């Protein structure tokens, strides 16, 4: 009697699992994007965002573009922020989030991992105003399917303390070459993705390596980039990933030159101009962030409304200005509190961005389209970086 009961139970559990498996696989194998039209069903969305991207007034009561959205749509929004792309990938894989603001080095990993769904841009009217050079790019579009709406972008600039670095640098050579005038006071970004910065410099200085995309490095090119990082090491005072610590080090004079973000330079120049920030002649790495929807969301209507809301010109202007980057919506530039914001961040220029290489996740299949060689995948970048930093 007992045994049969147990068997029944086991059979039930197994059947339940089958049903569950059946459901989830049918969802994933769907033809892709949501067809709409959007329903006015209230719902709750959990938002995974870079700090400053989805402000609901808790940090600063005057900075709030979440509450107006909730009031207008009846959707409830919970925001969780993260510090690095790697953390974002981990959280997203854990599930429970409906939308995410992903940089290019996170988005591809999530798309190929099946964590995101293609979006139907017809349901997002504000998409029409997005700058053209942000549409249909490799970090937000795969196999012709769009996976989200662009939010904003920035370049990793070369920052230097005025008066301490002479002459004022216009080339990354000041952070790479052994005869740098700033030896011992250089900083670099403490992440494997910084290997791409070395590749950007090699593109200009060693054309014989044939690098065309700093995120598509074959083994030889990768080794050259690592060798350049080794060459740089004696120049380095500190590697940075915490930008408040970086600001302190610049103020104290222990760091005078290195890769930086425009927002850091702005903070340092808050009272009086002390640092310069340029995009050197070789070009630079940068980021371009995209709002994307989880493949497992249960609040699809609210998620679409969020994507449309966050790139509304007025909201995009607020968010870009609060974070310190170039907005993605072309109409946002007219609405920033500081009328110079867009020129300060080069939002409307096309040339400025032509040699900005946005963060992407390197894969074994070369991102630059080469098929005769294998490229070094990001997991190897991470291993090499960890080994390099602990050598």
């Amino acid at each position: 009697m007992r045994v049969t009961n147990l068997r029944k139970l086991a059979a039930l559990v197994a059947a339940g699992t089958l049903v569950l498996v059946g459901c989830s696989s049918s969802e994933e194998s769907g033809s892709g994007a949501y067809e709409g039209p959007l329903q006015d069903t209230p719902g709750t969305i959990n938002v995974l965002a870079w700090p400053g991207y989805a402000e609901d007034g808790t940090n600063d009561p005057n900075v709030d573009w979440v509450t107006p959205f909730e009031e207008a749509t009846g959707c409830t929004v919970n925001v969780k922020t993260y510090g690095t792309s790697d953390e974002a990938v981990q959280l997203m894989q854990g599930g429970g989030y409906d939308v995410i603001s992903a940089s290019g080095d996170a988005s591809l990993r999530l798309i190929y991992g099946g964590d995101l769904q293609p979006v139907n841009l017809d349901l997002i009217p504000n998409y029409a105003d997005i700058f053209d050079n942000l549409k249909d790019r490799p970090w937000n579009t795969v196999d012709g399917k769009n996976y989200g709406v662009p939010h904003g972008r920035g370049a990793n600039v070369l920052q230097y303390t005025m008066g301490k670095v002479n002459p004022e640098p216009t080339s990354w050579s000041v952070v790479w070459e052994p005869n740098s005038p700033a030896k011992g006071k250089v900083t670099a970004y403490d992440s494997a993705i910084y290997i791409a910065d070395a590749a950007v410099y090699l593109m200009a200085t060693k054309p014989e390596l044939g690098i065309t995309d700093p995120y598509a490095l074959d083994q030889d090119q990768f080794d050259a980039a690592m060798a350049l990082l080794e060459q740089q090491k004696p120049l380095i005072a500190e590697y940075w990933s915490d930008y408040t610590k970086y600001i302190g080090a610049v103020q104290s004079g222990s760091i005078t030159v290195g890769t930086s973000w425009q927002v850091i330079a702005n903070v340092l120049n808050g009272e009086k101009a002390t640092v310069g920030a340029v995009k050197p002649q070789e070009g630079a790495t940068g980021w371009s962030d995209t709002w994307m929807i989880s493949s497992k969301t249960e609040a699809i209507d609210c998620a679409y409304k969020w994507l449309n809301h966050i790139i509304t010109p007025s909201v995009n202007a607020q968010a870009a200005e609060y974070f310190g980057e170039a907005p993605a919506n072309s109409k946002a530039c007219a609405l920033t509190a500081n009328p110079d914001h867009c020129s300060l961040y080069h939002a409307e220029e096309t040339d400025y961005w032509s040699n900005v290489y946005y963060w992407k996740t390197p894969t074994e299949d070369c991102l630059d389209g080469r098929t005769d060689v294998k490229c070094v995948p990001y997991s190897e970048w991470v291993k090499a970086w960890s080994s390099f930093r602990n050598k």
Partner: protein
Amino acid sequence: MIKSAQHFLNRHVKTRAALLLSLPLGWMIVIYLGALFALFLTSIWKIDTFTSDVIREFTLENFTDVFTDRAYFNVSIRTLMVAISVTLICAVIAIPMAFYMARIAKPSNRPILVALVLTPLWASYLVKVYAWRTMFYPESGFLQWLISPVGGKSPGFGMVAVIIGLTYLWLPYMVLPIYAGMEKLPNSVVDASADLGAKPGRTFREVVMPITWPTIIAGSVFTFSLSMGDYITVQILGGTFQMLGNVVYQNFSLNLPFAAAVSLIPVIIMMIYLAGIRKTGALDNL
């Protein structure tokens, strides 16, 4: 009901013992050994190299990566050097301090001295480390200001800064057990040594030190293990210098199994250390 339970437990001694032990043992097994086991288990799993998902398939690759890459051997040695240096410096400072507190200072002043040693522990760890950071700034830091008139130069950020910072942080953990040990030392033993003609120095070396030796070892367990695992002080004071904790921190989000494999190194070192000192009786003084 309660009475009958009492009766039952009185008659069944083993059941009683089992019930009494279940809570601490459960804690030990589930929380401590369980976590260690989970760590070990994770270290023999694979990851999907693109999406960083953990795949539950057996592999020893993480260990070969750790043990064949020279960098991780070097960082283990560096971490060990830092932990040993911090422990030795703490002992050198703490022994005379504790001796003064326990034997020389007026008994009425002792609680105040103990409170003074404890006070830094009440301040936030981060506040203290950031305070050291401002002191170590190579050009504008306090140390530079202090040393430059006599022709010296601030060490700046690096291994020295980390050792000084950690020594400052963990010193109370060394002072307190030694103080407790020296205070328990009976006056009669010290007096007897003096009566037999030993000078104070010899009494200290041959009477006080041997008796308080286990307490010094007990303090070293704290300073050594806390230094082995630290990574925040290293991030703030280390400049480009890194320790084992930083390797774990850098890898845990992208390659959890590898981070788990690395984190077993300090666990193994600590086990060897604890096994080595078990004979000294120091563990009774923790």
